[in-house]
């Protein structure tokens, strides 16, 4: 049961795909769009790439710019359509990875909805977009690998730099503990952050106590081993 709202908006299901595909074998999946407004919407579907920088900021790119973009291997149909109030529609995409595909390829499908203004005046017109992320792995070619590159302390914050050295994205669980001799004085866990293949991420943990401490970073990235890094810091 859906409530139909008086503005304009829509839902996508699912918000992302995590597919394992055998190169050379086409796989078709579908995305469900539901119009939750009282207006008929015109929806355009466009392909984009994205990268995530070391601080977690997402940068959107034209399709094919990211070296491991999936878009060369993805066909979408339809690319534009109208959807009536309360109506559900399906957009299908077909993935066909080449024989030499290795690891994971990613990108997004952006569903853009425009409601054209009824009158023309000096104005700000609103536009809404909902994104469906695609992560497509070539079967039997995925390698998970990661490394703790650095542990630093700067400006009341402990930074842990993690490098994804494999060929698929990772969502590591990062636990930081700080010890004052035998006493644990700080513990925090961060998880669920996406790190694309061959990229780095810096995890920041605010820490304001003064003294000499032993910092231990523990990272479970889903690989064979759990990484552990240790460093002594002096906070004045």
């Amino acid at each position: 049961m859906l409530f139909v709202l008086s503005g304009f908006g829509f839902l996508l299901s699912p918000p992302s795909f995590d597919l394992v595909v055998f190169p050379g074998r086409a796989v078709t999946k579908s995305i469900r769009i539901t119009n939750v407004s009282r207006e008929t919407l015109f929806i355009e579907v466009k392909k984009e790439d994205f990268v995530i920088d070391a601080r977690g900021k997402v940068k959107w790119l034209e399709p094919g710019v990211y070296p491991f973009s999936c878009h060369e291997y993805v066909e979408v149909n339809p690319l534009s359509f109208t959807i009536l109030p309360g109506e559900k529609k399906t957009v299908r995409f077909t993935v066909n990875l080449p024989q030499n595909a290795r690891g994971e390829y990613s990108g997004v499908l952006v569903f853009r909805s425009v409601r054209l203004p009824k009158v023309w005046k000096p104005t700000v017109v609103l536009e809404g977009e909902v994104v469906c992320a695609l992560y497509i792995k070539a079967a039997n070619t995925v390698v998970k690998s990661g490394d703790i590159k650095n542990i630093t302390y700067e400006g009341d914050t402990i930074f842990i730099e993690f490098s994804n050295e494999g060929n698929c994205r990772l969502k590591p669980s990062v636990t930081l503990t700080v010890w004052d001799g035998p006493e644990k004085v700080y513990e925090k866990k961060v998880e669920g952050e996406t790190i694309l293949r061959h990229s780095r991420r810096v995890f920041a943990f605010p820490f304001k106590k003064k003294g000499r401490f032993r910092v231990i970073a523990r990272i479970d990235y889903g690989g064979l081993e759990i990484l552990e890094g240790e460093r002594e810091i002096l906070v004045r």
Partner: protein
Amino acid sequence: MRKCIFLFALVVLPINLFGLGRQIGAPPDTLIDSVQVQVIIPERIGLYLETDASGDIVVFDLDAAGYPPASFPAYYDPTDPATSPTVDIEVFSNSPTKTWYLDACGDDFDATYIPITQLEWSPAGAGSYTDFSNGWTNHASGSKTTGWEAHDEDYRFEAQADDPAGTYTTWVRYRVYAL
């Protein structure tokens, strides 16, 4: 004798037939069964935008608001809608593991004289305004929402001394995603 047999049949047999006899004789048979119930809740993400402005567009009519101001820069609230919030924004995300993000960007009103940075936004009622920009900037983020979650915004326009007269239009784009 026949009467006794008849009475026996009348009293004892029905008791046996209707189960009382079981308590006396064989151990009770218990049949336990269950019904499996499955509920499938699809993972969904959604964005909803609404403005109370007539024609569904936000208008800054500087003539109606008193222009020119005594000094520049001067800040003007929208004339339509005239009340907060300028835009109702709602986000839906029911993923238990993914963080959702609401980003926004805009096109310049006029590339030479009126860039998009002259349009500012604030969380509704907060009065802490930030420039819009051509590039995507984050306006809100969070984990699983409880139904549709409101992230309403107010707008204001920053009038500069060199703004040429004219009628200008721009697009403000909102994007929601959970990577």
